[in-house]
Structures are given as C-alpha cells and as structure tokens.
C-alpha cells in the first residue's frame, strides 16, 4: 500500500551502553565481538537472597549538560539525555533552529522501573500518604523524554512508545512517520532501558547460569536525505522502513515476503542491487522456522551472508545496539568477528570465507519479538562518511 516516500537518512549517533560509552568504543567492541564484563549483584528481597549478573556502565558525566540538571535525573533519564545530546553533537545539527519543530521519540521496554520500584517500596514499607512527589512524577514512562525535552528546550512532539522487546523498532518507525507526515523536519529517535532488582524474582538464580541484565541508551538523528544534503552533513546510512507484521504460519510468511519485496522495490534507491548482509536481532527462538523461510522468500534464491541472533536480550531495547552495529559494519566495511552463515541457492551453511563480500552496501536488519512480530529495516550506504569533512567527525574520539 505504501507509495514512494521521501528518503530518510541517519546523520547522528549517541550511545551509552555496556559495550561502549562512545560510538568508537562501541564500534570496536561490536566488530571485535568483545562482550562486556558482567558483575554479580546480590540482593535481599522479601526475606530471600538473590543473585544475578549485571552488564553495567560507568558513571556518566557530560560537560555539555548543566550539572544541576544531571543531578535531578535518575539513571535512565540521565543516560537518555546524555546519549541524545551526544547524538545531536555528532550530527552537527544547529538544533537551536529546530526548537519548535524537532521531534523526540523514545522507545523503552521498562521505562522508569527504578522509580516505580522505589515508589512501591515506599508505599508498602511506609504508608500510602508518605510517598515522594518527586519520585512519582519521575516514575512515568515518558519521564526520560520529558527531561530530554526540558534539557534541550525542545517544543516539538516528544513521544514515548513501549512495545516489549521491539520498543526501539517501534520508536524508529514512529520517528519516520513524523518525518513522512511532515510534522517534524528532524527527529531524535532512541531506545533506552535500565534494570531493576525485582526482575530477579523471575530469573534463574542458579549461580552457574546467572541471568544477565543491563542498562543502556542509544540515539539516532533521522532527517530527510534532502535536508542532510542541504546542510552538507555526513550521512551514516539511508534507512528504508519496511512494513511491520506479525506472522504465524507459512502462508502469512509468504504474503509478508511479497509485501517486503514490493516495498523494497518502491523505496530502495538500489533496486536490483543485492542485499549483502542480513542481520538478525531480537528473540532467537523462531530463527529456523520463521526467519529463514522469510529471508529465503525475500531473496528468491539470491545469495547473502547472514548474522544470526546469538545472545538473549539483556534488556528490551538492546536491539538498538544491533542497529548501531549494522551502521558500524557499513561505515567500517568490516564484518564482526562472530559466526556468519551463507545463504546460497536456498541452502544455508557456515560461511567459510567472506570472499564474495567485497563491499557492504546494503544490510537488511530483521528484528523479531517474542510475539512473532517482525520489524525490518534496510540500511544503505550512500557515501563514505570519512571522506566528508565535518567538525564533529573526531568528536567521538574525545
């Protein structure tokens, strides 16, 4: 049903997560497949002892944001504000010109769970009339986006969406809708989550297989390609937004693949060019019986390298890291040091070598939720970002 849309590009990145607190550190960790170090955390809850593992991040400080503001924010809001701020810095956008119109869309699976936990503890341990008013208004899911809007003095649409382990993907699609509907000329889109002690109650507490949780925030600046060209800014990638769908059986998979192909044909600038790499993210349970048939139907016998999902999500919006990882592959033209599969003649096998992969121009990112909902994005490399001079190109090395 989609008509051809205006082209959307990514022109800024800001990341704070266990795999890296700057883009360059993250790129290095992702491409070298270096896992963050987890630490065990002991808690005593409701009379019982629990232990779980945490991928944490070091304390954050951002000189660009007033320290008085940073002090008022809880962990999630602080990560969001700092990563979004760094994203704007990275983009080179003179955002003071966009204060009335810039969109902010944040995806979060858990929201301000930390505050909710504290509030519930107060309500049960103290009394129903003794809970903290400050804690209450920071407990809403949209508190981080609200803090970000206040910090940036941004008066455009400031939205928060939550859709389990596809919260980031949901935010990304909504960000694109804000651009396509011309509600906003640029949109800051991100995914962020933090962990909380209560989650351990449903996790395996066996010390040999500790459940691992993490925190992190990852933001991207989306804008129309035309606007990026006008302000002569480097572009990380062009993003083609493909329809999202929940599929339950082979017939639906086939129909969905047809829609994806039609959409790719309408939206992609490189129609007819191969998809070089397919990156799977999200929940790995349906990989073999749904994702592989889907990708075979989309590729129609054409060859492609595949990166399968490898680890369970340690937080709902961890998929934002895979999205950024795909940008790392496009920018650095390097495949991560992990298991790669090769689909050729409809046969799937381990990729012995990457000799057919001379350049990586197009990556199809497939995210699947535990509900069987697919979100697909095509990332296309437009030009070599490093060849274009920008005052912000070296910023990430700071």
């Amino acid at each position: 049903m989609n008509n051809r849309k205006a082209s959307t590009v990514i022109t800024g990145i800001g990341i704070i997560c266990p795999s890296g607190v700057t883009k360059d550190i993250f790129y290095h960790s992702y491409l070298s497949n270096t896992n963050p170090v987890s630490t065990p955390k002991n808690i005593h809850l409701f009379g019982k002892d629990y232990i779980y593992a945490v991928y944490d991040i070091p304390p954050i400080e951002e000189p660009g944001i007033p320290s008085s503001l940073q002090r008022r924010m809880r962990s999630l809001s602080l990560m969001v504000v700092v990563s979004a701020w760094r994203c704007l810095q990275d983009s080179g956008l003179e955002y003071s010109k966009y204060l009335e119109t810039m969109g902010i869309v944040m995806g979060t699976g858990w929201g301000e769970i930390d505050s909710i936990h504290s509030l519930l503890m107060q309500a049960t341990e103290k009394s129903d009339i003794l809970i903290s008013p400050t804690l209450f208004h920071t407990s809403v899911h949209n508190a981080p986006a609200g803090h970000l809007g206040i910090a940036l003095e941004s008066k455009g649409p400031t939205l928060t969406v939550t859709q389990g382990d596809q919260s980031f993907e949901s935010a990304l699609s909504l960000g694109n809708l804000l651009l396509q509907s011309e509600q906003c000329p640029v949109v800051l889109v991100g995914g962020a989550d933090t962990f909380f002690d209560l989650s351990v109650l449903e996790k395996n507490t066996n010390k040999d297989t500790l459940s691992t949780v993490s925190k992190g925030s990852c933001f991207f600046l989306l804008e129309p390609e035309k606007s990026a060209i006008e302000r002569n800014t480097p572009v990380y990638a062009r993003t083609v937004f493909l329809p999202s769908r929940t599929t339950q059986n082979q017939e639906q998979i086939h129909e969905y693949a047809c829609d994806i192909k039609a959409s790719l044909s309408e939206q992609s600038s490189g129609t007819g060019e191969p998809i070089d790499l397919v990156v799977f993210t999200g929940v790995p349970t349906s990989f073999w019986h749904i994702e592989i048939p889907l990708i075979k139907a989309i590729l129609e016998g054409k060859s492609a390298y595949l990166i399968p999902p490898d680890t369970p999500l340690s937080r709902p919006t961890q998929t934002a890291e895979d999205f950024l990882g795909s940008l790392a592959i496009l920018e650095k033209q390097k495949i991560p040091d992990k298991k790669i599969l090769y689909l050729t003649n409809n046969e799937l096998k381990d990729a012995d070598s990457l000799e057919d992969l001379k350049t990586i121009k197009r990556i199809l990112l497939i995210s699947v939720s535990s509900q069987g909902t697919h979100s697909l994005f095509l990332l296309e490399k437009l030009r070599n970002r490093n060849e274009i001079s920008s005052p912000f190109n070296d910023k990430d090395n700071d």
Partner: protein
Amino acid sequence: MSQKPRVVVTGVGIVSCIGNTYLDVQKSLHVCKDGLGPVTIFSTSAIHPVGEAQIDASSDERKFRIHFLADHAIQEALLSSGLLAGSNPWQNIGIALGTCTSGMLEMEESFFHLRKGEENKVSISKPLSMGVICDDIASKYNISGRKMLFSTACSSSSNAIACAFHAIREKECNAMIAGGADALCRLTYYGFQSLKIMAENKCTPFSSTRKGMNLGEGSGILILESLDHALKRGAKIYAEIAGVGTSADAYHMSAPDPMGRGAYQAMKIALDCASILPKEIDYISTHGTGTLQNDEVETIAIQNLFDTYCHKPWVNSIKSYLGHTLGSSGAIASVCAISSLETNFIPPTLRLENIDPKCNLHHSLEKGVHENINTALVNSFGFGGNNTSLVFKKFYE
C-alpha cells in the same frame, strides 16, 4: 503529490464509570449523571472519590484489569464499525493504544503478596511491559499490521489517535484501532495524593472553589479508517478526524508552562492540520482536570488562540463525570465529543456554579447546551509537558 486521504471514525467503544457502551455513556451525559464514588478495588486510608468502572475483571486470572477495560471497548468499537462482519476484515489494519499504568494494579498485588511471604500468582514483569496490552489484543483479533503503544502519561491515548491518523494519511494502513485504557491503581492514587492535587469531594473544574482532581478509569476506542475504505464497505461514519497537533512545554516534568504556550501550540497545529480557523470550532472538550494550575493555564491558552477571532467556543470538562482517566482520558473525551457531534448536545461541566474569573470561558452549564455542533476540539495534556489536541468534524461528503 497525491492528495492525502481523509480519515473518518467508523466505530466507537467506551467503558467508564458512567456506562459501558457508547449509548449508555451518551444517556448518562444527557441526564448529567456522574459516576464518582469511593474507591473499592483496593484499600486506602484516603477519601478522594474516584470514577471506578463497573466491570467484571475476574473471569481470567492471567489478565489484568486493563485488559478487560480495553477489550470491552474494542469489541464494541469493532462491532459498531462492521469490520468483524467483513470477509477479510484484518487486511492492512493496525492498532495504536495509549496507557500509563498498564498492569500496575496487578503488579502491586504481587508486591504485597511477596512482602507477606505469600506465593506470587502474577508475573512481575508482564504487568509492567505495557506493550503486552497491544500484543494481546492484536493476537485476539488476529491483527497483523502496525502495533504501537504510547505511554506519554495523560496524553497517551490522544497520541495513539494522532499516530493512527497520520499512519492512515500516509497510506501505511487502511484502518487503525486507536485509543487507550487505564485502570485505577495505588501508584497513581497515592502519587497524585502526594502532589496534593486530589480533591476530597467531587471535582469542580474551572470553579473558583475547585480543590483538585478525581481519578478515574476506563477505555475509549475509535476505529479510524480512510474515507475510501469506509465508503467502499458501506460503513457508518460517526465523524471525521480532521487534524491533530502535538507539542511539548519544555518547562517542567509535572507543572504546565504558566503561559500555556505548549497547549496553545498543540491546538494551533491541530487546527492548521485540519485547515480550519479557530472561529470554526464550536466546542472544546478541555483537559479540565480541576487542579488550580491546569484549568488556569488551559484557559490562557484557549483565550490566546480564540480571543483574537472574538470567538468563544463552548467548553466543558468531561472529567467532572468520570474523573481523570489518565492515559485513556483523551480517547474517552474523543468518544464523548463524537457523541456531541452526533446529538448536537454539549454536556455541562457538573457542579460548576462559581466560575473562577481566571477561567473565563464560554462554559456549558446547568443542563448543557443544545446547539448545532459541527466541529469539536479535544485537548489532552500530560506529565513531561506533553500536549495533544484532536479536531473532529461532522462528516459531510
């Protein structure tokens, strides 16, 4: 560039303390019946009245109260839209909902069980994963298209409707189930109490003696559809949604901008989107919580937008009937506004006798206003300085 499709409302559903169907609510509004009373679904030492929905939420232990609220309204909306009777009803249909408490009530129950050392019957994480409402509803009705759950505090369901409007205009789908639901819970009851903005009696928005808000719960659902799609299948058209506007205050997490700039901006964008002038608005369903700050600031914003045109549209606050239903309030107010367009009746703001001079608007009082209503504006404002306005019109081909 091809013209963007018009978007129409082809189904409505509602659950609230003044009725569990569109017609029941319409009747309650006509006889000025509020549904405010003591809270019964949890114990508390406080006495603030609430608008508690009369609905059986006990038939399935795995579901949350919000599931029952949302599902009831969605069923009514789908039935009224005629979509359930179609041969291939779910092709290219999506769902956008808004909520801010989700399964918090059940989460609290779990918490209390655990604290007492009792076995916990309910999942800890599921109640907090708000998207589960969208997932479960989509799964029940086999909706495979776009799913989106907004959590922007009190403007959540209005943002869901705004998103659905744009998704249809951008031809991402033919139709969307849009709206929201929220259930009463301790967290919001205690939380608003801690902010000292809850009234100990029934609320009186815009009154000089107003003491704050009452909380409520419920669900409001609209079926939005492109006009072509609706006409092709011969659907009844309740109204047209002509424009939406969203803005942020960038001022404070819980207090509104005292000059009402964000609220003004949201209304202005919605009118521009609908290509209509302020003087064409007949009726504004205000956010009208009954708190000192909100009512005063909303008045300033309305005056700034409409006084320039020497135009005073009728205003009321539906919250005087059913309390502030938080994330679902925008959708519930939208359903009530559509009822006003259908019946040419603007219900009065209940108990409003002494109008605050700082809230000098054209209030619907006493037994309400019977007048031809062509265009209605629905306001929703939330924590984080979130403002969303929606414009509904009588449908004319």
